């Protein structure tokens, strides 16, 4: 009986979303009187024993270079073996891109009930019930898992990342990985930018900005705040911005600590992708824009006047140029 947390990484770096999953796993283990362990497939540059500071006693590692690239079938096979050999009965993933690829496969392979998109620790007093977002963030569901082995994927930015003291024991696991089905041909990464789903602050622009040439101030505000940039659906559809920046019901759903919407009216489909943000700021010329009803702070005014002044104020506050 233990909690096993899948540790996701890319380019040698452990993803922040997986650190959140480790904290969640440690808290879950503490509340159920068991221990939390980690499992990492592949290799990273970081010393894995440091992950003990998140309350993790043991880190299992299958240190094969072929596992540095995600192949859903290979990963689910290796993880199923790891679950068996560690005796884990709860497996935690981040509900990030890798989690979405692997967790359902592992669920089917182990016939272990899966709740994806958890936002809280499970209620274990009477059964095992996990709260998750449904209806694209417009509601929550409490979902009960009936199987002995349980799998949870944790929404990003839903559980606080807290580091304490401690060193984890790193244990090599000898599990043979089959040859991957998938061959990577090329990868493009927008360097120097914060990935949208991992960002704590997101600055987003809509049709109110009138054209792609006006995105300079959105990018500048994002830069001074250390934020990622996003956009509404009409903006992505008009090719003003790449479609991987589109947040909303049919784009990416995000839950940053701060979401700043500039020139976005706030259609219900857009809100569905951002309503889990902790603080929402809306800047719009139209006082009737529906987004103000979902916002925590707002300015009714011309974005072209207001945003540069906000950038100045942030620069002053942070003492940056």
């Amino acid at each position, binding site marked *: 009986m233990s909690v096993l947390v899948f540790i996701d990484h*890319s380019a040698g770096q452990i*993803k922040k979303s997986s650190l959140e999953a480790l904290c969640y796993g440690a808290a879950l283990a503490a509340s159920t009187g068991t221990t939390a362990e980690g499992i990492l497939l592949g290799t990273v540059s970081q010393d894995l024993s440091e992950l003990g500071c998140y309350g993790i006693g043991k880190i299992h590692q299958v240190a094969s270079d072929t596992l540095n690239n995600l192949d*859903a*079938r290979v990963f689910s096979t290796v993880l199923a073996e790891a679950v068996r050999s560690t005796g884990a009965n709860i497996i935690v993933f981040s*509900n990030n*891109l890798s989690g*979405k*690829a692997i*967790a*359902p*496969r592992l*669920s*089917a*392979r182990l*016939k272990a009930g*899966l709740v*994806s*998109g958890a936002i809280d620790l499970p209620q274990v007093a009477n059964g095992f*019930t996990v*709260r998750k*977002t*449904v209806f*694209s963030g417009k509601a*929550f*569901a*409490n979902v*009960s898992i*009936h199987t002995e082995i349980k799998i949870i994927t944790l929404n990003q930015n839903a559980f606080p990342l807290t580091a304490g003291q401690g060193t984890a024991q790193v244990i090599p696991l000898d599990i043979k990985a089959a040859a991957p*089905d*998938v*061959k*990577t*041909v090329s*990868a493009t*990464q927008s360097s120097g930018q*914060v*990935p*949208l789903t*991992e960002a704590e602050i997101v600055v987003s622009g809509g049709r109110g900005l009138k054209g792609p040439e006006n995105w300079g101030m959105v990018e500048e505000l994002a830069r001074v705040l250390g934020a990622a940039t996003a956009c509404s659906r009409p903006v992505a559809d008009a090719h003003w911005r790449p*479609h*991987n920046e589109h947040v909303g*019901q*049919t784009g990416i759903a995000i839950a940053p600590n*701060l979401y700043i919407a500039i020139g976005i009216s706030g259609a*219900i*489909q857009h809100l*569905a992708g951002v309503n889990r943000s*902790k*603080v929402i*700021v809306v800047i719009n010329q139209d006082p009737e824009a529906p987004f*103000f009803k979902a*916002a*925590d702070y*707002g300015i009714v005014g011309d974005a072209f006047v*207001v945003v540069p*002044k906000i950038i100045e*104020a*942030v620069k*002053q*506050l942070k003492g940056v140029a």
Partner: protein
Amino acid sequence: MKILVCISKTPDTTAKIAFKDNNTKFVAEGVQWIINPYDEWYALVRAIELKEKDPATILHLVCVGLPDADPVIRKALALGGDEAIRVNADSQDSYYIAAQIAAVAREGNYDLIFTGKETIDYNGASIGGMVSELLDLPFISLATKFELAGSLATVTREIEGGEQTEQVGLPLVVSCQKGMAEQRIPNMKGIMGARSRPLKVVEPVTADTLTSVVSFELPPAKAGVKLVSADNPAELVRLLHEEAKVF
């Protein structure tokens, strides 16, 4: 070449979300039902494009649902597809649904199975992965582009902060998202043709239910917006820093 597209019936994106019977059931009365947008705009339309390129392609749709799903299935057939299969069952458990789809897929021996990346009601994002595992096939999730040359697929998928292009041989399961295709509106010929295309109803296979929804909740209402004057945007920055403490 045989393609299977998994479709699901979901409430319209603007539907009012409310619950009844002590918050255990979704209020379906007055709700307009649509094809789950990820299934329709991306999975189905891309499959139709592949069939247009190679007319010998056989395109089937599968939906796990009760007879009230039929109008949505007909709507999907109006966009394209040679035949639809409805598995006559209703479940909120993704493993149960995946087991039904896997049974249909085994029967039909498909080369390619497309799903949407998730449904907009339960947001499980699980069906594609589960079906691929049950069939022991490769799986590419969150695909934004899909090209086919013979039996070799070149698929671009989302990675954190970018995209990755991968090659993998058929048979294959792919979950589809924005970028795969553009939304289409069915034309009159499609709508008329959809009526004559077969909609087969099959009974479900025996499968376990691994999870169940105990109850629903609506999020607490927002306290209301605090408006800052457009003449003093610096005040907004002060509030975000000192009151909301977000930076």
